[in-house]
C-alpha cells in the first residue's frame, strides 16, 4: 500500500491534497509528470499530476478536484490509509528552458499542475508573470505558492470576489499587449480555458504549452485511449505528452472524447452516494 502521510482539504473540500509515500517515484519525478493511482482492487486507474515531490522524505504530492466516483472515493482516504497502486512517474517532463520572459496561466485545479512548472521556469532564471483564476475566492488554491514562484502575479475570479472580475484570458491578453518580450506561455486548466488562452496567444504569436487530460487506462502507450490530435497527427498523451504545443491541438475532439462515459460516470457516482459499504460499488472492497 502507498500510504497517505498528510492530507489537506482545499477550496471548501472540493479539492484535496495528499502527500503519499512513494520513494521510488519521488526520486525520479520531474515537473510535468504524472502518476496513475488506484484506491482498491475494484478501482479505476486514475491519472493525476504530481503537484510536488519531496525526494528526501520519499513523498509525492497530488492535488485533485472531486468530480466523480473515483475522486470522491479518494476523498474518503485518510492519513494512515492509502492507495493499492501508484504507478509512475509517467509522461514526458516539461522541457524547462530559459527564454527570458514567460507567462503561466492556471485555472481551477490546473494551478496545481502549473505550480511546479512555474517554479522550475523561475528557478532557471526566467522572469515569470502568472495569472491564476477560479470561479470564486474560496475556490482559489495555491495562491501563496504561486506568488513565491512568480515575479508578478495576477488573480481573477469569475464572480469578482477576489482580484479581477472575469476570466484569466483577460489578464493574459492585457499582459501580452503590455509586454512584447514574452516568449512563452504555459496554460493549464479546464479544456475551454486552455482553448481560449491559445486563441489569445496565437494572436500574439507566442508559443504556448498546454497539459492535456484525456481519459487514460494504462498510461504506458499500450491502449490508445488517450489519443489526441496534434498538428493533425494522432498522439498518445500518456507517452508523447501530456504537454503539447497548444496552437496545434484539436480541442473540439478532446472535448468530445472527454465525454465518452458521461452516462456511466453518473451511474457510478450515484451508486457510490447510495452505497456506503452496501456492496453495490467498489467503496467497500
Amino acid at each position: 500500500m502507498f500510504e497517505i502521510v498528510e492530507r489537506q482539504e482545499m477550496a471548501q473540500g472540493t479539492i484535496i491534497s495528499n502527500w503519499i509515500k512513494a520513494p521510488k517515484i519521488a526520486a525520479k519525478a520531474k515537473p510535468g509528470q504524472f502518476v496513475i493511482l488506484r484506491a482498491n482492487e475494484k478501482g479505476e486507474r486514475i491519472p493525476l499530476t504530481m503537484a510536488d515531490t519531496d525526494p528526501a522524505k520519499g513523498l509525492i504530492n497530488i492535488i485533485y478536484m472531486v468530480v466523480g466516483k473515483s475522486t470522491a472515493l479518494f476523498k474518503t482516504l485518510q492519513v494512515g490509509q492509502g492507495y493499492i497502486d501508484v504507478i509512475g512517474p509517467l509522461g514526458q517532463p516539461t522541457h524547462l528552458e530559459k527564454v527570458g520572459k514567460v507567462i503561466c496561466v492556471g485555472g481551477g485545479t490546473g494551478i496545481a499542475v502549473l505550480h511546479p512548472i512555474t517554479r522550475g521556469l523561475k528557478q532557471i532564471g526566467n522572469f515569470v508573470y502568472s495569472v491564476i483564476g477560479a470561479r470564486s475566492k474560496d475556490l482559489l488554491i495555491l495562491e501563496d505558492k504561486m506568488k513565491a514562484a512568480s515575479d508578478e502575479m495576477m488573480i481573477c475570479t469569475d464572480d469578482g470576489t477576489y482580484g479581477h472580475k472575469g476570466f484569466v484570458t483577460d489578464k493574459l491578453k492585457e499582459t501580452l499587449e503590455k509586454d512584447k518580450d514574452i516568449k512563452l506561455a504555459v496554460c493549464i486548466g479546464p479544456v475551454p480555458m486552455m482553448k481560449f488562452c491559445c486563441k489569445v496567444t496565437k494572436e500574439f504569436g507566442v508559443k504556448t504549452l498546454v497539459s492535456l487530460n484525456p481519459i487514460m487506462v494504462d498510461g504506458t502507450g499500450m491502449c490508445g485511449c488517450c489519443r489526441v490530435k496534434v498538428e493533425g497527427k494522432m498522439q498518445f498523451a500518456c507517452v508523447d505528452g501530456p504537454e503539447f504545443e497548444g496552437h496545434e491541438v484539436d480541442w473540439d475532439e478532446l472535448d468530445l472524447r472527454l465525454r465518452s462515459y458521461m452516462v456511466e460516470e453518473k451511474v457510478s457516482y450515484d451508486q457510490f452516494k447510495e452505497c456506503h459499504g452496501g456492496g453495490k460499488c467498489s467503496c467497500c472492497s
Partner: protein
Amino acid sequence: MSEEVKAPKKEKIPRQKMPEQPANERRRNFEEVPYGYTPELAMKEAERCIQCKDPRCKQGCPVEIDIPGFIKHIKEGEFEAAIRNLWEKNSLPAVCGRVCPQEVQCEGLCILGKKDEPVAIGNLERFAADYQREHGKQILPPKADPTGKKVAVVGAGPAGLTVAGDLLLKGHDVHIFEALHGPGGVLLYGIPEFRLPKAIVFQECNFLERMGATIEVNAVIGRSETVDELLERFDAVFLGVGAGLPVFLKIPGEHYIGVYSANEYLTRSNLMKAYEFPVYDTPIVKGKSVATFGGGNVAMDCARTALRLGADHSYIIYRRSMAELPARTAEVHHAEEEGVEFLLLNNPTRFLGDDATGRLTGVEVLKMELGEPDASGRRRPVPIKGSEYTVEIDTAVIAIGSGSNPLLTKSTPGLALNKWGYIVADPKTGKTMKPRVWAGGDIVTGSATVILAMGAGRLASNSIHDYLTYGW
C-alpha cells in the same frame, strides 16, 4: 473358454468432445466455455494415441513436449506422472492446453489426422494441468543451491514467467518487474476470462512467488527505472515486454466515442473487469451493434466479448475470406456458434459519427474480391470499385495487429532494433547487442503465440544460466 471365440475387434474410439456451455447461454456470460475432460473422458481420449515410435506430433510442438509420453500416463490413470512429464518442457500447461493453435502444431501433424481426427492433444494437456491444480498435491519442484546471482526479468508475460521459473530452479535470485498492476501479460489483460480464467494465471504467478521470485508490479521500466539502472543491481536482465502498441486503421473518424483499439477494449474488460461495472469502477461502451476489424485470435476475443457485454449484433469485418482467417479454428467455430456475424471480403474506409455527441454511428466499407496470391502466398484482396456500403454500428474495435511499444527500447541505449522497432536478439540464445541483456517473446518476433514466447524464454534462460555459471 472355447478356442474359436476371437477377441472382439477393437472398436474405434471417436475423438472425445470436451463438454462445454451451450452457445446460447455462454454468449451472455464470461465463464469459461469448455468445462474440460472428466478423468474418464481423458483416459478414453488418451487411448486413441497409437504411441508412435517416431511421433510426428512432437515435431510440431515448439517446445518439444514428449507428447506420447504424457498421454500414456493419462491413459493409465497416472495423472501426476503426466503433469511431471509436461512440466519438464512446459511450465504453463494449463494455459497452453487452452490457447495454443494445436491444429497447426502438434495436432496438425498427428498421424491419426491423416484419415481421421487427430488425438486431442491440447485437451489432454489441459486436463493433466487442471487435474493437478484441483486434486493434486502442491508439489514444489526441487531447487538448486542458491548461486547468489541476481536476474531482473522485465515483463511478466509468458516469456518473462518462463525465464523466471527456469532460473529459480537453477538457484538464481529472480526479480520480475511488471508495468501493470498485475502479472500475466496478455494472459491477464488480453485473453478473456471465458477462454482463460484469470484464476489460472494468478495461480501460475503465485507458484513462482512460492518458488522464491519477487514480483514487483507497477514498475514501468524506462520510466520508474531504466535498464541501465537495473544492470547496476543485477547480473543479467531479460526483456520480455511484449508487443504492446495499438495499431489503428488510419481512416477518418477514429476519434469518435465508441472506437477502441483491441488493447483498450480487452484491457477494460479483462484487466479492469468493466463487465462488472458498476461494481468495478472502470466503464466500457456496451454497444448494441459492434464491429471488430481483423481476423485473428484477438479479433475473435473482441467479437465474443462484445456479445457478452450485451450486443445484439457482433460483426467481424475482415478483408480476406474465411479460409485466410488467422485465428485458431476452435475460436472461429466458437464465435460462429455464439452468433458472431462474419462480413468477409470487406474493408473499412471511414467511420461515421454524430458530430454533436461525438458518438460513432456507422462504418463505411468497401467490398473486396480475391486476386493473385501475394508474398505470403495468400490471395490478395482487391477492392471492387463503387461497392461501398454502410454498416450501422455504435462500437468499433480495431484488432488488426499490434506493434512494438517504444517506451522501454527508446530509453535503453545500446539495444539494436529492427526496422519495425523490435529488439534484435540471437534466435538461439536471446542475447541482444547490449551486454548482459537478453530478450524474447513478442518484443523480438512481433505478435506471435504464447508457446513461442515461452520457447524463447527457455532458450534465453539457458543462455543466462550459462553466462552466470561460466561467463560469456
